[in-house]
């Protein structure tokens, strides 16, 4: 895929980096002059996926999270990936309110929020190898 502009970051799977990941996505995409609402949608979806990589993928152990942002015109592409434990049942994971970690006070709303705030959310996951989330969004043209 040929992007107009792209950035791919690899960072430590630490919860301090969740806000950094949002800043990264927002900072890169401001070039497209998005609305505040669009920017919040992307930040929220990125936050969900990055948090999942840290707490579910790596279960708070060390690891590296990958975050990609790219765009063609007003169409943006986001990927979030980890090389953690993977998802056994992707259908179940996508269900609203389903969480494998209720003891950590997770709400099970992560994927639902990604699907609501972004378009075409795709999950690729192999147990024992890791997970990659693909998301897209078309920004309003002014």
């Amino acid at each position, binding site marked *: 895929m040929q992007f107009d502009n792209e950035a791919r970051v690899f960072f430590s799977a630490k*919860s*301090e980096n*969740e*806000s950094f990941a*949002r800043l990264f996505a927002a900072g890169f995409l401001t070039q497209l002059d998005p609305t505040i*609402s669009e920017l*919040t*949608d992307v*930040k*929220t979806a990125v*936050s*969900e996926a990055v*948090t999942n990589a*840290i*707490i579910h993928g790596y279960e708070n152990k060390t690891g590296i999270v990958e975050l990609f942002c790219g765009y063609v015109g007003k169409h943006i592409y986001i990927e979030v990936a980890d090389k953690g434990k993977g998802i056994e049942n992707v259908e179940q994971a996508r269900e*609203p*309110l389903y969480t494998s970690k209720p003891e*950590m*006070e*997770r*709400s*099970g*709303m*992560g994927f*639902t*929020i990604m699907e*609501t705030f972004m378009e075409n959310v795709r999950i690729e996951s192999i147990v024992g190898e890791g997970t990659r989330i693909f998301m897209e969004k078309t920004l309003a043209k002014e």
Partner: protein
Amino acid sequence: MELKFKRKNKTLIIQISGEIDHHTAAELRRQTESALEQMGGRNIIFGFQEVTFMDSSGIGVMIGRYKQIQSLGGRIAIACPNEKIEEIIRLSGLSRLLPSFPTLNEAIAYAEGRESDAV
């Protein structure tokens, strides 16, 4: 994220400013529990006036507190969330358990069981 705690009648009011994510949610949970212990209170109001960001980790903390408070017969309410945060609460189907109000006074009235006063 910064927190300010205030007790009014039977209600603990928690004014949150900044971002609520998985990283700060642990702190929100810890401090809310210790404020409940030290300051007491049967109801909780989360003041969202100055919350600039929240993801589903915030929902998790609020459901957790709802379960605690409900067993004591108390109520939880959310005051002044922005549109996007209200959408996240609505999505989670929590609007009935954790209703949102545009003003702190309306949230207090609900929490103290005097809805009609505020209307």
